[in-house]
Protein backbone atom coordinates (compact mmCIF):
# COMPACT_ATOMS: atom_id res chain seq x y z
CA UNK A 1 0.00 0.00 0.00
CA UNK A 2 2.66 2.43 1.05
CA UNK A 3 4.56 1.92 -2.15
CA UNK A 4 1.43 2.43 -4.24
CA UNK A 5 0.85 5.77 -2.52
CA UNK A 6 4.41 6.97 -2.83
CA UNK A 7 4.60 6.14 -6.51
CA UNK A 8 2.74 9.20 -7.87
CA UNK A 9 4.86 11.39 -5.63
CA UNK A 10 7.97 9.79 -6.99
CA UNK A 11 6.80 10.32 -10.55
CA UNK A 12 6.01 13.97 -9.88
CA UNK A 13 9.41 14.43 -8.29
CA UNK A 14 11.11 12.83 -11.26
CA UNK A 15 9.35 15.08 -13.74
CA UNK A 16 9.97 18.17 -11.62
CA UNK A 17 13.68 17.40 -11.57
CA UNK A 18 13.68 16.85 -15.33
CA UNK A 19 11.79 20.09 -15.87
CA UNK A 20 14.20 21.97 -13.64
CA UNK A 21 17.18 20.64 -15.51
CA UNK A 22 15.65 21.31 -18.92
CA UNK A 23 14.76 24.91 -18.12
CA UNK A 24 18.25 25.50 -16.77
CA UNK A 25 19.84 24.02 -19.90
CA UNK A 26 17.50 25.61 -22.41
CA UNK A 27 17.20 29.07 -20.87
CA UNK A 28 20.18 30.58 -22.75
CA UNK A 29 18.72 29.30 -26.01
CA UNK A 30 15.40 30.83 -25.13
CA UNK A 31 17.11 34.14 -24.37
CA UNK A 32 18.94 34.01 -27.69
CA UNK A 33 15.66 33.59 -29.52
CA UNK A 34 13.88 36.23 -27.42
CA UNK A 35 16.42 38.93 -28.12
CA UNK A 36 16.55 38.01 -31.78
CA UNK A 37 12.84 38.76 -32.15
CA UNK A 38 12.78 41.84 -29.94
CA UNK A 39 12.65 45.14 -31.89
CA UNK A 40 15.88 47.15 -31.50
CA UNK A 41 14.26 50.06 -29.69
CA UNK A 42 12.89 47.73 -26.97
CA UNK A 43 16.10 45.84 -26.22
CA UNK A 44 17.32 48.19 -23.56
CA UNK A 45 13.96 49.26 -22.17
CA UNK A 46 12.52 45.75 -21.85
CA UNK A 47 15.77 43.80 -21.84
CA UNK A 48 15.12 41.81 -18.70
CA UNK A 49 11.48 40.94 -19.31
CA UNK A 50 10.69 37.35 -20.14
CA UNK A 51 8.64 38.26 -23.18
CA UNK A 52 8.86 41.56 -25.17
CA UNK A 53 5.70 43.61 -25.78
CA UNK A 54 6.09 43.44 -29.54
CA UNK A 55 7.84 41.08 -31.93
CA UNK A 56 9.76 41.57 -35.16
CA UNK A 57 11.61 39.53 -37.75
CA UNK A 58 13.58 42.58 -38.90
CA UNK A 59 16.79 41.30 -37.34
CA UNK A 60 16.64 38.11 -39.38
CA UNK A 61 15.87 40.07 -42.55
CA UNK A 62 18.82 42.39 -41.98
CA UNK A 63 21.20 39.58 -41.15
CA UNK A 64 20.23 37.51 -44.16
CA UNK A 65 20.08 40.23 -46.82
CA UNK A 66 22.20 43.16 -45.68
CA UNK A 67 25.25 41.52 -44.11
CA UNK A 68 27.78 38.93 -45.25
CA UNK A 69 26.17 36.40 -42.98
CA UNK A 70 25.22 33.98 -45.78
CA UNK A 71 28.80 33.92 -47.01
CA UNK A 72 30.10 33.16 -43.50
CA UNK A 73 27.47 30.54 -43.15
CA UNK A 74 28.49 28.90 -46.42
CA UNK A 75 32.17 28.97 -45.43
CA UNK A 76 31.39 27.36 -42.10
CA UNK A 77 29.29 24.69 -43.72
CA UNK A 78 32.09 23.90 -46.15
CA UNK A 79 34.74 23.75 -43.44
CA UNK A 80 32.62 21.75 -40.99
CA UNK A 81 31.40 19.21 -43.52
CA UNK A 82 34.89 18.85 -44.93
CA UNK A 83 36.38 18.37 -41.49
CA UNK A 84 33.68 15.93 -40.41
CA UNK A 85 34.07 13.83 -43.54
CA UNK A 86 37.88 13.78 -43.54
CA UNK A 87 38.16 13.13 -39.81
CA UNK A 88 35.58 10.37 -39.75
CA UNK A 89 37.12 8.60 -42.72
CA UNK A 90 40.58 8.60 -41.16
CA UNK A 91 39.33 7.85 -37.65
CA UNK A 92 37.26 4.91 -38.89
CA UNK A 93 40.29 3.38 -40.59
CA UNK A 94 42.58 4.00 -37.63
CA UNK A 95 39.97 2.89 -35.11
CA UNK A 96 39.43 -0.38 -36.99
CA UNK A 97 43.17 -1.04 -37.08
CA UNK A 98 43.54 -0.32 -33.36
CA UNK A 99 40.58 -2.51 -32.55
CA UNK A 100 41.42 -5.53 -34.70
CA UNK A 101 45.14 -5.73 -35.38
CA UNK A 102 48.26 -6.00 -33.32
CA UNK A 103 51.15 -4.19 -34.94
CA UNK A 104 54.49 -2.78 -33.94
CA UNK A 105 54.31 0.70 -32.48
CA UNK A 106 50.61 0.47 -31.68
CA UNK A 107 51.10 1.47 -28.06
CA UNK A 108 53.43 4.31 -28.98
CA UNK A 109 50.95 5.73 -31.48
CA UNK A 110 48.15 5.53 -28.93
CA UNK A 111 50.33 7.25 -26.31
CA UNK A 112 51.31 9.97 -28.78
CA UNK A 113 47.67 10.55 -29.64
CA UNK A 114 46.77 10.84 -25.98
CA UNK A 115 49.57 13.31 -25.35
CA UNK A 116 48.39 15.60 -28.15
CA UNK A 117 45.09 15.87 -26.29
CA UNK A 118 46.80 17.24 -23.20
CA UNK A 119 48.26 20.46 -24.62
CA UNK A 120 46.25 23.66 -24.26
CA UNK A 121 45.52 24.88 -27.78
CA UNK A 122 46.86 28.33 -26.99
CA UNK A 123 50.39 26.95 -26.72
CA UNK A 124 50.48 25.72 -30.27
CA UNK A 125 48.65 28.50 -32.00
CA UNK A 126 51.80 30.42 -32.86
CA UNK A 127 53.66 27.49 -34.42
CA UNK A 128 50.57 26.47 -36.36
CA UNK A 129 50.26 30.02 -37.65
CA UNK A 130 53.89 29.96 -38.82
CA UNK A 131 53.47 26.62 -40.55
CA UNK A 132 50.29 27.66 -42.33
CA UNK A 133 51.78 31.02 -43.27
CA UNK A 134 54.93 29.51 -44.72
CA UNK A 135 52.78 27.14 -46.76
CA UNK A 136 51.01 30.22 -48.11
CA UNK A 137 47.69 28.90 -46.88
CA UNK A 138 46.56 31.80 -44.71
CA UNK A 139 43.02 32.92 -45.44
CA UNK A 140 42.14 29.61 -47.07
CA UNK A 141 39.34 27.41 -45.87
CA UNK A 142 41.38 24.32 -46.73
CA UNK A 143 43.92 25.22 -44.07
CA UNK A 144 41.13 25.25 -41.52
CA UNK A 145 39.94 21.81 -42.64
CA UNK A 146 43.46 20.45 -42.36
CA UNK A 147 44.06 21.93 -38.91
CA UNK A 148 40.66 20.91 -37.54
CA UNK A 149 41.03 17.41 -38.92
CA UNK A 150 44.44 17.06 -37.31
CA UNK A 151 43.09 18.16 -33.95
CA UNK A 152 39.99 16.01 -34.03
CA UNK A 153 41.54 12.77 -35.24
CA UNK A 154 42.80 11.45 -31.87
CA UNK A 155 39.51 11.74 -30.06
CA UNK A 156 37.51 10.58 -33.08
CA UNK A 157 39.82 7.58 -33.44
CA UNK A 158 39.28 6.53 -29.83
CA UNK A 159 35.56 6.98 -30.30
CA UNK A 160 35.53 4.82 -33.44
CA UNK A 161 37.79 2.24 -31.83
CA UNK A 162 35.36 1.84 -28.97
CA UNK A 163 32.54 1.30 -31.47
CA UNK A 164 34.56 -1.35 -33.30
CA UNK A 165 35.48 -2.96 -29.98
CA UNK A 166 31.76 -3.29 -29.32
CA UNK A 167 31.30 -5.43 -32.43
CA UNK A 168 32.25 -9.05 -31.66
CA UNK A 169 35.19 -10.38 -33.63
CA UNK A 170 33.19 -13.53 -34.21
CA UNK A 171 31.01 -11.67 -36.69
CA UNK A 172 33.89 -10.95 -39.04
CA UNK A 173 35.20 -14.46 -38.62
CA UNK A 174 31.77 -15.89 -39.37
CA UNK A 175 31.63 -13.73 -42.48
CA UNK A 176 35.05 -14.98 -43.55
CA UNK A 177 33.93 -18.57 -43.01
CA UNK A 178 30.91 -17.71 -45.15
CA UNK A 179 33.23 -16.79 -47.98
CA UNK A 180 34.04 -13.11 -47.48
CA UNK A 181 37.47 -11.61 -47.83
CA UNK A 182 38.45 -9.42 -44.89
CA UNK A 183 37.43 -6.36 -46.86
CA UNK A 184 34.07 -7.85 -47.83
CA UNK A 185 33.45 -8.77 -44.19
CA UNK A 186 34.21 -5.18 -43.27
CA UNK A 187 31.89 -3.77 -45.91
CA UNK A 188 28.97 -6.17 -45.56
CA UNK A 189 28.94 -6.95 -41.87
CA UNK A 190 31.01 -4.49 -39.88
CA UNK A 191 30.23 -1.29 -41.74
CA UNK A 192 26.42 -1.52 -41.37
CA UNK A 193 26.88 -2.16 -37.67
CA UNK A 194 29.18 0.85 -37.27
CA UNK A 195 26.70 3.32 -38.76
CA UNK A 196 25.71 4.58 -35.29
CA UNK A 197 29.38 5.08 -34.48
CA UNK A 198 30.02 6.88 -37.75
CA UNK A 199 26.96 9.08 -37.11
CA UNK A 200 28.12 9.97 -33.62
CA UNK A 201 31.63 10.75 -34.81
CA UNK A 202 30.39 12.85 -37.73
CA UNK A 203 28.10 14.78 -35.40
CA UNK A 204 30.75 15.35 -32.81
CA UNK A 205 33.37 16.58 -35.27
CA UNK A 206 30.89 18.67 -37.21
CA UNK A 207 29.78 20.49 -34.08
CA UNK A 208 33.34 21.03 -32.91
CA UNK A 209 34.39 22.49 -36.26
CA UNK A 210 31.21 24.57 -36.56
CA UNK A 211 31.82 26.45 -33.35
CA UNK A 212 35.61 26.72 -33.49
CA UNK A 213 36.81 30.31 -33.09
CA UNK A 214 40.46 30.43 -32.07
CA UNK A 215 42.13 29.00 -35.17
CA UNK A 216 39.61 30.59 -37.48
CA UNK A 217 40.41 33.97 -35.96
CA UNK A 218 44.16 33.46 -36.29
CA UNK A 219 44.31 31.97 -39.75
CA UNK A 220 41.55 33.96 -41.46
CA UNK A 221 41.55 37.71 -41.77
CA UNK A 222 39.87 38.32 -45.14
CA UNK A 223 36.16 38.95 -44.92
CA UNK A 224 35.22 36.58 -47.74
CA UNK A 225 36.95 33.61 -46.09
CA UNK A 226 35.54 34.14 -42.62
CA UNK A 227 33.66 31.34 -40.93
CA UNK A 228 30.54 32.03 -38.97
CA UNK A 229 32.03 32.41 -35.45
CA UNK A 230 34.55 34.93 -36.76
CA UNK A 231 31.89 36.69 -38.78
CA UNK A 232 29.77 36.99 -35.67
CA UNK A 233 32.43 39.26 -34.20
CA UNK A 234 31.82 41.77 -37.01
CA UNK A 235 28.53 42.56 -35.33
CA UNK A 236 30.60 44.06 -32.56
CA UNK A 237 31.54 47.43 -34.00
CA UNK A 238 33.86 49.92 -32.38
CA UNK A 239 31.06 51.87 -30.80
CA UNK A 240 28.26 49.45 -30.16
CA UNK A 241 27.13 45.86 -30.23
CA UNK A 242 24.20 45.07 -32.49
CA UNK A 243 22.58 42.63 -30.10
CA UNK A 244 19.45 41.91 -32.11
CA UNK A 245 21.31 41.02 -35.29
CA UNK A 246 23.94 39.06 -33.43
CA UNK A 247 21.31 36.95 -31.73
CA UNK A 248 19.40 36.46 -34.97
CA UNK A 249 22.61 35.23 -36.59
CA UNK A 250 23.15 32.93 -33.61
CA UNK A 251 19.70 31.42 -34.00
CA UNK A 252 20.33 30.79 -37.69
CA UNK A 253 23.66 29.21 -36.87
CA UNK A 254 21.94 26.66 -34.66
CA UNK A 255 19.91 25.34 -37.58
CA UNK A 256 22.56 23.14 -39.24
CA UNK A 257 23.58 21.54 -35.94
CA UNK A 258 19.94 20.78 -35.18
CA UNK A 259 19.33 19.38 -38.66
CA UNK A 260 22.46 17.30 -38.42
CA UNK A 261 21.45 15.75 -35.14
CA UNK A 262 17.91 15.10 -36.30
CA UNK A 263 19.44 13.35 -39.28
CA UNK A 264 21.82 11.16 -37.28
CA UNK A 265 19.70 10.64 -34.19
CA UNK A 266 18.04 7.48 -35.46
CA UNK A 267 21.50 5.96 -35.83
CA UNK A 268 22.40 7.09 -32.32
CA UNK A 269 19.23 5.55 -30.88
CA UNK A 270 19.90 2.38 -32.85
CA UNK A 271 23.38 2.36 -31.39
CA UNK A 272 22.01 2.37 -27.88
CA UNK A 273 19.80 -0.65 -28.52
CA UNK A 274 21.96 -2.71 -30.86
CA UNK A 275 24.15 -3.78 -27.94
CA UNK A 276 21.32 -6.10 -26.98
CA UNK A 277 21.75 -8.13 -30.14
CA UNK A 278 25.26 -9.48 -29.73
CA UNK A 279 25.58 -12.62 -31.75
Amino acid at each position, binding site marked *: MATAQSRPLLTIGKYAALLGYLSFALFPLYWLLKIAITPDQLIFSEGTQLWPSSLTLDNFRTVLFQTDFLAYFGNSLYVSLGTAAATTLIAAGAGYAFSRFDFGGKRIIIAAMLITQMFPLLMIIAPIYKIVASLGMLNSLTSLIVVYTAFNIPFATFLMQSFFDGIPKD*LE*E*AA*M*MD*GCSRFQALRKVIFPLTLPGLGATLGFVFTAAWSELLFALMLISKNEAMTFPVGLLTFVSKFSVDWGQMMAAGVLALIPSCLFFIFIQRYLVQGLTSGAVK*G
Partner: protein
Amino acid sequence: MARIELKDVVKRYGSVEVLRDIDLDIEDGEFIVLVGPSGCGKSTLLRMIAGLEPITSGDFLIDGERMNDVRPRDRDIAMVFQSYALYPHMDVARNMGFSMEIRKDPSNERMSRVKQAAETLGLTSLTERLPKALSGGQRQRVAMGRAIIRDPRAFLFDEPLSNLDASLRVEMRLEIARLHQKLGATMIYVTHDQVEALTLADRIVVLNGGDIQQVGSPLDLYERPANKFVAQFIGSPTMNIIPVQGNSNGVKLADGTLLELPHLFGTIDAVELGMRPEHIDVVEVGDLVGVADVVEHLGSDTNLYLQVEGLGPLMVREHGNIPVQPGDRVGLRIQSENIHLFGPDGNALRCPTKEAAA
Protein backbone atom coordinates in the same frame (compact mmCIF):
# COMPACT_ATOMS: atom_id res chain seq x y z
CA MET B 1 33.29 -34.52 -48.06
CA ALA B 2 36.81 -34.44 -46.88
CA ARG B 3 39.62 -36.25 -45.23
CA ILE B 4 41.49 -33.98 -42.87
CA GLU B 5 45.06 -34.61 -41.73
CA LEU B 6 47.16 -32.79 -39.18
CA LYS B 7 50.86 -33.64 -39.08
CA ASP B 8 53.11 -32.45 -36.25
CA VAL B 9 51.03 -29.31 -35.94
CA VAL B 10 52.31 -26.81 -33.37
CA LYS B 11 50.79 -23.54 -32.23
CA ARG B 12 52.72 -20.88 -30.38
CA TYR B 13 51.64 -17.45 -29.20
CA GLY B 14 54.94 -15.66 -28.87
CA SER B 15 57.00 -18.05 -26.78
CA VAL B 16 54.01 -19.84 -25.25
CA GLU B 17 53.35 -23.21 -26.83
CA VAL B 18 49.61 -23.88 -26.64
CA LEU B 19 49.53 -26.98 -28.88
CA ARG B 20 52.33 -29.52 -29.30
CA ASP B 21 52.87 -32.11 -32.02
CA ILE B 22 49.27 -32.63 -32.97
CA ASP B 23 48.92 -35.67 -35.22
CA LEU B 24 45.43 -36.48 -36.31
CA ASP B 25 43.93 -38.26 -39.26
CA ILE B 26 40.22 -37.64 -39.73
CA GLU B 27 38.35 -39.90 -42.11
CA ASP B 28 35.86 -38.65 -44.64
CA GLY B 29 32.44 -38.46 -42.99
CA GLU B 30 33.75 -39.02 -39.50
CA PHE B 31 32.32 -37.26 -36.47
CA ILE B 32 35.31 -36.22 -34.34
CA VAL B 33 34.89 -34.62 -30.94
CA LEU B 34 37.70 -32.62 -29.38
CA VAL B 35 37.26 -32.70 -25.64
CA GLY B 36 39.28 -31.42 -22.73
CA PRO B 37 39.22 -28.98 -19.84
CA SER B 38 38.94 -25.24 -20.44
CA GLY B 39 42.10 -23.66 -21.85
CA CYS B 40 43.59 -26.89 -23.22
CA GLY B 41 43.67 -25.57 -26.78
CA LYS B 42 40.49 -27.05 -28.32
CA SER B 43 39.28 -23.80 -29.85
CA THR B 44 42.74 -22.94 -31.07
CA LEU B 45 42.99 -26.28 -32.89
CA LEU B 46 39.56 -25.80 -34.44
CA ARG B 47 40.37 -22.26 -35.51
CA MET B 48 43.57 -23.43 -37.17
CA ILE B 49 41.53 -25.93 -39.17
CA ALA B 50 39.10 -23.14 -40.05
CA GLY B 51 41.95 -20.87 -41.15
CA LEU B 52 41.17 -18.16 -38.60
CA GLU B 53 44.42 -18.76 -36.74
CA PRO B 54 47.79 -19.26 -38.44
CA ILE B 55 49.53 -22.62 -37.92
CA THR B 56 52.98 -22.11 -36.39
CA SER B 57 54.49 -25.27 -37.83
CA GLY B 58 53.49 -28.64 -39.20
CA ASP B 59 51.18 -29.56 -42.05
CA PHE B 60 47.44 -29.34 -42.40
CA LEU B 61 45.92 -31.22 -45.32
CA ILE B 62 42.44 -31.55 -46.73
CA ASP B 63 42.07 -34.45 -49.15
CA GLY B 64 45.82 -34.64 -49.41
CA GLU B 65 46.26 -31.01 -50.32
CA ARG B 66 48.32 -28.75 -48.04
CA MET B 67 46.06 -25.99 -46.76
CA ASN B 68 48.19 -24.17 -44.16
CA ASP B 69 48.22 -20.90 -46.03
CA VAL B 70 44.84 -21.04 -47.73
CA ARG B 71 42.38 -18.35 -46.69
CA PRO B 72 39.26 -19.42 -44.73
CA ARG B 73 36.98 -18.59 -47.67
CA ASP B 74 38.89 -20.94 -49.94
CA ARG B 75 38.88 -23.90 -47.56
CA ASP B 76 35.15 -24.51 -48.04
CA ILE B 77 34.55 -25.32 -44.40
CA ALA B 78 31.53 -24.15 -42.39
CA MET B 79 31.72 -23.24 -38.73
CA VAL B 80 29.15 -22.81 -35.96
CA PHE B 81 30.39 -20.40 -33.30
CA GLN B 82 29.79 -20.64 -29.59
CA SER B 83 28.31 -17.13 -29.65
CA TYR B 84 26.34 -18.06 -32.82
CA ALA B 85 27.74 -14.89 -34.44
CA LEU B 86 24.53 -14.13 -36.32
CA TYR B 87 24.62 -10.91 -38.33
CA PRO B 88 22.40 -8.63 -36.24
CA HIS B 89 21.31 -6.45 -39.16
CA MET B 90 20.13 -9.30 -41.38
CA ASP B 91 16.95 -11.31 -41.02
CA VAL B 92 17.02 -15.08 -40.54
CA ALA B 93 16.71 -15.87 -44.23
CA ARG B 94 19.53 -13.55 -45.22
CA ASN B 95 21.70 -14.81 -42.37
CA MET B 96 21.28 -18.35 -43.62
CA GLY B 97 21.74 -17.47 -47.27
CA PHE B 98 24.69 -15.15 -46.73
CA SER B 99 27.36 -17.55 -47.94
CA MET B 100 25.45 -18.13 -51.17
CA GLU B 101 24.91 -14.40 -51.53
CA ILE B 102 28.66 -13.86 -51.28
CA ARG B 103 29.33 -16.59 -53.82
CA LYS B 104 26.81 -14.91 -56.12
CA ASP B 105 24.73 -18.05 -56.51
CA PRO B 106 21.49 -17.49 -58.43
CA SER B 107 18.93 -16.01 -56.09
CA ASN B 108 16.15 -18.50 -56.83
CA GLU B 109 18.48 -21.36 -55.93
CA ARG B 110 19.43 -19.49 -52.77
CA MET B 111 15.78 -18.96 -51.83
CA SER B 112 14.97 -22.63 -52.25
CA ARG B 113 18.01 -23.75 -50.24
CA VAL B 114 17.12 -21.31 -47.46
CA LYS B 115 13.54 -22.58 -47.48
CA GLN B 116 14.73 -26.17 -47.35
CA ALA B 117 17.14 -25.50 -44.48
CA ALA B 118 14.47 -23.55 -42.60
CA GLU B 119 12.16 -26.55 -42.93
CA THR B 120 14.82 -28.98 -41.75
CA LEU B 121 15.45 -26.86 -38.67
CA GLY B 122 11.86 -25.82 -37.97
CA LEU B 123 12.49 -22.14 -38.68
CA THR B 124 9.95 -21.65 -41.46
CA SER B 125 7.81 -19.15 -39.59
CA LEU B 126 10.80 -17.10 -38.44
CA THR B 127 12.65 -16.37 -41.67
CA GLU B 128 11.80 -12.68 -41.64
CA ARG B 129 12.83 -12.02 -38.07
CA LEU B 130 16.01 -10.32 -36.94
CA PRO B 131 18.28 -12.31 -34.61
CA LYS B 132 17.40 -10.09 -31.66
CA ALA B 133 13.79 -11.30 -31.88
CA LEU B 134 14.80 -14.95 -31.47
CA SER B 135 15.29 -17.13 -28.41
CA GLY B 136 18.63 -18.76 -27.67
CA GLY B 137 17.58 -22.09 -29.13
CA GLN B 138 16.26 -20.46 -32.28
CA ARG B 139 19.48 -18.50 -32.75
CA GLN B 140 21.37 -21.76 -32.40
CA ARG B 141 19.25 -23.27 -35.17
CA VAL B 142 19.87 -20.30 -37.44
CA ALA B 143 23.60 -20.67 -36.85
CA MET B 144 23.31 -24.32 -37.88
CA GLY B 145 21.19 -23.37 -40.87
CA ARG B 146 23.88 -20.96 -41.99
CA ALA B 147 26.38 -23.80 -41.93
CA ILE B 148 24.30 -26.41 -43.76
CA ILE B 149 23.00 -24.10 -46.47
CA ARG B 150 25.90 -24.89 -48.77
CA ASP B 151 27.53 -28.30 -48.97
CA PRO B 152 30.81 -27.56 -47.24
CA ARG B 153 33.61 -30.11 -47.17
CA ALA B 154 33.51 -30.18 -43.40
CA PHE B 155 31.65 -28.71 -40.44
CA LEU B 156 33.29 -27.24 -37.38
CA PHE B 157 31.42 -26.66 -34.12
CA ASP B 158 32.92 -24.74 -31.22
CA GLU B 159 30.93 -25.58 -28.08
CA PRO B 160 27.70 -24.90 -29.95
CA LEU B 161 25.40 -25.96 -27.12
CA SER B 162 27.11 -24.42 -24.12
CA ASN B 163 24.82 -21.38 -24.06
CA LEU B 164 21.60 -23.40 -23.98
CA ASP B 165 19.71 -24.69 -20.99
CA ALA B 166 19.89 -28.38 -20.16
CA SER B 167 16.75 -29.69 -21.88
CA LEU B 168 17.39 -27.71 -25.04
CA ARG B 169 20.94 -28.99 -25.05
CA VAL B 170 19.75 -32.59 -25.16
CA GLU B 171 17.33 -31.78 -27.94
CA MET B 172 19.93 -29.99 -30.07
CA ARG B 173 22.43 -32.77 -29.43
CA LEU B 174 20.01 -35.22 -31.00
CA GLU B 175 19.43 -32.80 -33.84
CA ILE B 176 23.16 -32.61 -34.53
CA ALA B 177 23.44 -36.40 -34.46
CA ARG B 178 20.57 -36.62 -36.93
CA LEU B 179 22.17 -33.99 -39.11
CA HIS B 180 25.38 -35.95 -39.25
CA GLN B 181 23.52 -39.11 -40.22
CA LYS B 182 21.64 -37.25 -42.92
CA LEU B 183 24.54 -35.31 -44.43
CA GLY B 184 27.29 -37.83 -43.78
CA ALA B 185 29.76 -34.97 -43.75
CA THR B 186 33.02 -34.72 -41.83
CA MET B 187 32.33 -32.95 -38.57
CA ILE B 188 34.71 -31.67 -35.91
CA TYR B 189 33.04 -30.75 -32.69
CA VAL B 190 34.59 -29.05 -29.68
CA THR B 191 33.15 -29.43 -26.21
CA HIS B 192 34.24 -29.63 -22.62
CA ASP B 193 31.20 -31.78 -21.85
CA GLN B 194 32.09 -35.47 -21.89
CA VAL B 195 28.44 -36.52 -22.26
CA GLU B 196 28.24 -34.65 -25.57
CA ALA B 197 31.52 -36.24 -26.57
CA LEU B 198 30.45 -39.78 -25.70
CA THR B 199 27.04 -39.51 -27.34
CA LEU B 200 28.04 -37.80 -30.59
CA ALA B 201 31.48 -38.97 -31.52
CA ASP B 202 32.72 -41.66 -33.84
CA ARG B 203 36.09 -40.92 -32.32
CA ILE B 204 37.02 -38.68 -29.43
CA VAL B 205 40.26 -36.73 -29.16
CA VAL B 206 41.11 -35.97 -25.54
CA LEU B 207 43.31 -32.90 -25.14
CA ASN B 208 45.03 -31.65 -22.04
CA GLY B 209 47.51 -28.82 -21.72
CA GLY B 210 48.17 -28.71 -25.45
CA ASP B 211 48.84 -32.43 -25.88
CA ILE B 212 46.66 -35.14 -27.33
CA GLN B 213 46.12 -37.62 -24.50
CA GLN B 214 44.25 -40.28 -26.44
CA VAL B 215 42.28 -40.77 -29.61
CA GLY B 216 39.65 -43.45 -29.75
CA SER B 217 36.01 -44.45 -29.93
CA PRO B 218 33.85 -43.58 -26.91
CA LEU B 219 33.97 -47.21 -25.75
CA ASP B 220 37.74 -47.37 -26.20
CA LEU B 221 38.20 -44.39 -23.96
CA TYR B 222 35.79 -45.76 -21.40
CA GLU B 223 37.18 -49.27 -21.32
CA ARG B 224 40.84 -48.65 -22.08
CA PRO B 225 41.86 -45.15 -21.03
CA ALA B 226 45.49 -44.55 -21.93
CA ASN B 227 46.32 -42.69 -18.76
CA LYS B 228 44.97 -41.33 -15.50
CA PHE B 229 43.85 -38.07 -17.06
CA VAL B 230 41.63 -39.75 -19.65
CA ALA B 231 40.42 -42.25 -17.06
CA GLN B 232 39.19 -39.48 -14.82
CA PHE B 233 37.98 -37.16 -17.56
CA ILE B 234 35.82 -39.69 -19.36
CA GLY B 235 32.99 -41.39 -17.51
CA SER B 236 30.56 -40.00 -15.01
CA PRO B 237 30.68 -40.27 -12.05
CA THR B 238 34.46 -39.98 -12.03
CA MET B 239 36.65 -43.06 -11.66
CA ASN B 240 38.00 -43.82 -8.16
CA ILE B 241 41.78 -43.94 -8.09
CA ILE B 242 43.65 -45.27 -5.06
CA PRO B 243 47.34 -46.04 -4.44
CA VAL B 244 48.39 -49.73 -4.52
CA GLN B 245 51.48 -51.92 -4.42
CA GLY B 246 51.88 -54.40 -7.23
CA ASN B 247 52.99 -57.99 -6.67
CA SER B 248 53.07 -61.22 -8.60
CA ASN B 249 49.43 -62.27 -8.46
CA GLY B 250 47.54 -59.06 -7.78
CA VAL B 251 47.80 -55.68 -6.07
CA LYS B 252 47.92 -54.80 -2.40
CA LEU B 253 45.68 -51.92 -1.27
CA ALA B 254 46.79 -49.35 1.30
CA ASP B 255 44.79 -51.06 4.07
CA GLY B 256 46.58 -54.31 3.43
CA THR B 257 43.81 -56.01 1.44
CA LEU B 258 45.14 -58.16 -1.36
CA LEU B 259 43.16 -57.87 -4.55
CA GLU B 260 43.83 -60.94 -6.65
CA LEU B 261 43.93 -60.46 -10.38
CA PRO B 262 43.94 -64.04 -11.59
CA HIS B 263 43.31 -63.12 -15.23
CA LEU B 264 46.53 -61.12 -15.45
CA PHE B 265 49.87 -62.64 -16.15
CA GLY B 266 53.30 -61.77 -14.81
CA THR B 267 54.41 -59.22 -12.24
CA ILE B 268 52.28 -56.14 -11.92
CA ASP B 269 54.28 -52.96 -11.23
CA ALA B 270 51.27 -50.71 -10.74
CA VAL B 271 51.24 -47.81 -8.27
CA GLU B 272 47.61 -46.85 -8.67
CA LEU B 273 44.36 -48.68 -9.15
CA GLY B 274 41.35 -47.20 -10.94
CA MET B 275 37.81 -48.45 -10.41
CA ARG B 276 34.72 -46.94 -11.99
CA PRO B 277 31.89 -46.43 -9.50
CA GLU B 278 29.70 -48.81 -11.51
CA HIS B 279 32.34 -51.55 -11.27
CA ILE B 280 32.15 -51.89 -7.49
CA ASP B 281 29.31 -54.06 -6.19
CA VAL B 282 27.53 -53.82 -2.88
CA VAL B 283 27.55 -57.32 -1.33
CA GLU B 284 27.10 -59.05 2.05
CA VAL B 285 30.73 -60.00 2.44
CA GLY B 286 33.27 -58.58 -0.01
CA ASP B 287 36.84 -57.38 -0.33
CA LEU B 288 36.25 -54.18 1.61
CA VAL B 289 33.89 -52.62 4.11
CA GLY B 290 32.77 -49.00 3.74
CA VAL B 291 30.64 -46.66 5.79
CA ALA B 292 28.08 -44.70 3.78
CA ASP B 293 28.58 -40.95 4.04
CA VAL B 294 26.02 -39.65 1.59
CA VAL B 295 23.45 -41.67 -0.31
CA GLU B 296 21.83 -40.33 -3.49
CA HIS B 297 18.73 -42.14 -4.71
CA LEU B 298 18.33 -41.35 -8.40
CA GLY B 299 15.60 -43.90 -9.01
CA SER B 300 17.38 -45.79 -11.74
CA ASP B 301 20.64 -45.80 -9.78
CA THR B 302 21.92 -45.24 -6.27
CA ASN B 303 25.11 -43.26 -5.67
CA LEU B 304 27.00 -44.11 -2.48
CA TYR B 305 29.76 -41.92 -1.14
CA LEU B 306 31.66 -44.18 1.26
CA GLN B 307 34.58 -43.99 3.64
CA VAL B 308 36.75 -47.09 3.71
CA GLU B 309 39.04 -47.44 6.66
CA GLY B 310 42.68 -47.27 5.62
CA LEU B 311 41.77 -46.33 2.04
CA GLY B 312 39.82 -43.10 2.15
CA PRO B 313 36.74 -42.08 0.15
CA LEU B 314 35.24 -44.28 -2.56
CA MET B 315 32.26 -43.70 -4.75
CA VAL B 316 30.00 -46.54 -5.78
CA ARG B 317 27.13 -46.55 -8.20
CA GLU B 318 24.66 -49.39 -7.88
CA HIS B 319 21.91 -50.18 -10.36
CA GLY B 320 18.39 -49.73 -9.06
CA ASN B 321 17.27 -48.59 -5.68
CA ILE B 322 19.18 -50.18 -2.79
CA PRO B 323 18.10 -49.66 0.82
CA VAL B 324 21.26 -48.14 2.27
CA GLN B 325 21.11 -45.26 4.74
CA PRO B 326 23.90 -42.83 5.65
CA GLY B 327 25.97 -44.39 8.45
CA ASP B 328 25.31 -47.98 7.28
CA ARG B 329 28.24 -50.35 6.87
CA VAL B 330 28.27 -52.04 3.49
CA GLY B 331 30.42 -54.77 2.00
CA LEU B 332 32.09 -53.99 -1.32
CA ARG B 333 33.39 -56.26 -4.03
CA ILE B 334 35.64 -54.92 -6.76
CA GLN B 335 34.97 -56.35 -10.25
CA SER B 336 38.55 -57.40 -10.81
CA GLU B 337 38.11 -57.86 -14.58
CA ASN B 338 37.08 -54.19 -14.96
CA ILE B 339 39.86 -52.49 -13.01
CA HIS B 340 42.50 -50.15 -14.43
CA LEU B 341 46.14 -50.11 -13.38
CA PHE B 342 48.46 -47.13 -13.67
CA GLY B 343 52.22 -47.03 -13.53
CA PRO B 344 54.41 -44.40 -11.85
CA ASP B 345 54.22 -42.14 -14.95
CA GLY B 346 50.40 -42.08 -14.84
CA ASN B 347 50.08 -44.18 -17.97
CA ALA B 348 47.81 -47.18 -18.00
CA LEU B 349 49.50 -50.58 -17.68
CA ARG B 350 48.57 -53.08 -20.30
CA CYS B 351 49.30 -56.37 -18.59
CA PRO B 352 49.10 -59.40 -20.78
CA THR B 353 46.05 -61.46 -19.93
CA LYS B 354 46.22 -65.19 -19.55
CA GLU B 355 44.00 -65.82 -22.58
CA ALA B 356 46.26 -63.63 -24.74
CA ALA B 357 49.32 -65.48 -23.49
CA ALA B 358 47.80 -68.89 -24.06
